[in-house]
């Protein structure tokens, strides 16, 4: 009993402690809606679960063998009414939650565009060993391990992988989605408040996985325009050769930008998976360290 309460306290602490960062501190409409579903469903279930736990402990304690005041009912092993009750309590809970699941999976479906008067910004995402490439096809620029987006604007992501499967995830903005070689997944997110949010791969992808995180800088629209303009003036160019170099495995790559990205590169990556075929060409652990 004490420990059930302890467990509850810890879960309660989770709700509070998680507030500084993470999914309980949403910064966009998708994440906010998801937090709402999380909290509502937890509430609905706790209304059933807590009484059940208390009843279990109470029944076990009251009917302990040493309690002479408890009535012994050795023939109480069937009751149609109770059976009706024990099947219908969880069934009704689940019908309610099933409705929430149904509505939620349509409303927040990752490929569904966010309704907005602002024109979305398109970003093409490629997961590589072990870094993220973000291509802005409309702006013709690209960035590695750094995602800059305008606030209040829907971001329309197209995602793929150079080889191993990863999962693109920015907890404070909402849903994650897998990146898979030769396939394109779609995701729509939006940041409502300016700030720097942590993004990462949420699917283990090999030796450099732990360093496969990036920062999302959500900035006002003017700042974004300035950032695009200044990015166009510096840095290398992302063409087929530069991309092939980038696919070489490396860990903990410091963020940098490309002043130009070859048009159609993303589609090319999807249609011709270009990870090195020969295992011996993969970088040895020693040289990976050097790149840090």
């Amino acid at each position, binding site marked *: 009993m004490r420990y059930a309460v302890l467990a509850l306290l810890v879960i309660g602490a989770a709700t509070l402690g998680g507030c500084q960062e993470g999914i309980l501190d949403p910064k966009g409409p998708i994440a906010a809606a998801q937090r709402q579903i*999380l909290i509502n*469903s937890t509430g609905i279930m706790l209304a059933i679960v807590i009484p059940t736990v208390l009843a*279990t402990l109470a029944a076990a304690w009251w009917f302990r063998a040493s309690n002479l005041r408890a009535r012994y009912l050795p023939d109480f092993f069937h009751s149609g009414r109770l059976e009706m009750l024990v099947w219908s309590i969880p069934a009704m809970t689940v019908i309610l939650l099933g409705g929430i699941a*149904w509505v939620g999976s*349509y409303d927040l479906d990752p490929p569904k565009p966010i309704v907005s008067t602002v024109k979305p910004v398109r970003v093409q995402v490629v997961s590589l060993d072990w870094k993220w490439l973000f291509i802005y096809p409309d702006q013709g620029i690209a960035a590695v391990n750094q995602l800059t987006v305008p606030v209040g604007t829907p971001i329309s992501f197209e995602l793929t992988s150079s080889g191993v499967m990863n999962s693109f995830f920015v907890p404070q903005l909402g849903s994650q989605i897998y990146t898979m070689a030769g396939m394109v997944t779609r995701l729509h997110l939006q940041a409502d408040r300016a700030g720097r949010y942590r993004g990462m791969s949420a699917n283990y992808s090999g030796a450099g996985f732990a360093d496969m*995180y990036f920062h999302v800088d959500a900035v006002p629209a003017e700042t974004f325009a300035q950032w695009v303009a200044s990015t166009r003036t510096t840095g290398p160019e992302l063409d087929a050769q530069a991309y092939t170099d980038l696919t070489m495995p490396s860990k903990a790559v410091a963020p940098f930008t490309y002043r130009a990205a070859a048009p159609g590169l993303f589609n090319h990556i999807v249609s011709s998976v270009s990870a090195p*075929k020969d295992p011996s060409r993969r970088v040895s652990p020693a040289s990976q360290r050097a790149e840090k």
Partner: protein
Amino acid sequence: MNLLGKLSWSAIPFDQPIIMGATAFMVLLVVSVLGWVLLKGYLPYLWREWLTSVDHKRIGVMYIVLALLMLLRGFSDAIMMRAQQAVAVGGSQGYLPSEHFDQIFSAHGTIMIFFMAMPFLIGLMNIAVPLQLGVRDMAFPTLNSVSLWLTASGILLTNISLAIGEFAKTGWVAYPPLSELQFSPGVGVDYYLWALQISGIGTLLTGVNFVTTILKVRAPGMSYMRMPVFCWTALASNLLIVAAFPVLTAALAMLLLDRYLGFHFFSVDAGGNAMMYVNLFWVWGHPEVYILVLPAFGVFSEVSATFSGKPLFGYRSMVAATMAICVLSYTVWLHHFFTMGASANVNAIFGMMSMIIAVPTGVKIFNWLFTMYGGRVQFTVPVLWTLGFMVSFVFGGLTGVLLALPAVDWQVHNSLFLVAHFHHVIIPGVVFGAMAGFNYWFPKAFGFTLDERWGKRAFWCWFIGFHVAFMPLYVLGLMGMTRRLQHYDVPDWQPWLVVAALGAVIILAGIVCQGVQLVVSIRNREQLRDATGDPWNGRTLEWSTASPPPAWNYAVLPRVTAVDDFWASKKRARTTQDQPSEAPGYKPIEMPKNSATGFVTAFFAVVTGFALIWHIWWMAALGVLGAFVTFIVFAFRDRDEIEIPARVVAQFYRAHQAEAVR
């Protein structure tokens, strides 16, 4: 051509002190146990009575010994991971390089699921099911021994990987493309694949054996609706094994073809599709969860009824719920990858199906509650495990339903929230169930009860330790920490990880208490001796025979007239004052003969597996040939049964009665 394939001295990681230390410890342990057995001259006894035994009770005991050893191995992995994550913050890389850390979490998952939980529950089923059905053995006793030893082969291969070569660095699910040759060129994935293929055959054969036994080999009068609930859950679990394990075998076989023969089932290029593997893996993987938890539910049912002195509440309802779970478990696999980009329809349907499976599970919780209601609940060790399960598991179920909501899953998938959830159902569900069953049936298997005091200490350490270790992981998941991180850059996570590591230490104390419990009980076995065969005032048939039961279980097969037949017959005896009839006319009993087939087959399976992992083709051919010859020898045996003379049977019961009177 190299005679030893890819094998060379460089396969042994001499430069890794932690691995070499663990290896040295393991080798020392094995050598000293072997040496002790040889020096004391126990080998012939061990060979005759255990290694070649086809007695379901002994096979059950050996399964559980394997499971307990693998619990230690898997737990060592766990505590190393918790220690690593407790320190590896910011610039620190901790004490485990990713090379080693990635193997540890892969091995932990593989070992705990396949080589700890599975053998433990299969062991309990082996000990209890034929006794509960009132029969003398399984349908296929020699096959049972083959199953056991093939499981042991898989375990051995996995543990060899610690010393020679490496284990998979892919996580226990080994998703391609990461597990393809292109991205995992080492032998680690091959160890994983061959260990699971070999032990998987053993598990499948176990499934066939139990399904046949439960459907076809029951005592006279034991109709389906008179079977103890544990037998029902064993039936459901083994039906799932028979239907699900071939899917895993096929999926792993296709990955093997990719890796060995350049096929392209799941490869990145040439039309391969890794999504197929993920689907197939979880078509097996989700039923697997219920393969593990259903027998545990059966244990809780037996324990709650026995120690409440009451029949199980809603027996028919429980059977219906068990079979409903059995069927529904096939309709939910996609919830393991809502994040793959399936359409809203697909996600919604699988989300709802995943919740529906919570209904029969909820029914079971209520039925256990009403079983205690109006009972005389004795707070014995098995009851503590059961109550601990009930109060924790409902919260694990709660977080499970959260994960079944696609919209929530998109945020907590693959996070530590997920890790916390599945430990929250597997530890209270499966491990607590296994521990309850271990304490409950131990006196049946060995003839003396386990020490209560140390058992209770073990329970409390596990129960508290579990919550301290896993509640922080929920918090971390909500904070956005993903699983399988060898190091991390967010200092806010560290305090929670330190608490979790502390929880692992408390669980360690629980495991130590269990060790002490065993030692103390064996030392005090004379005081703890149970001469009656019925230490708990049991309800089902297994308690009507001696403890430990003779090889033939029952001299005369019981005639079953009711659910909880033993309880009913005890009640009858009390009311009519009739004594069991004096010295029934014992007849000679035919029992299956011991067979080395299982052990020898498994030996060749290890040789084959090892050879295939290291590409030593001649040795693989020899191994396959050896296994085939073993099979031929077995097929051409002259006698497979021995007759136990009536005189020996009578002698056993005279001695047993004398002891009971004493």
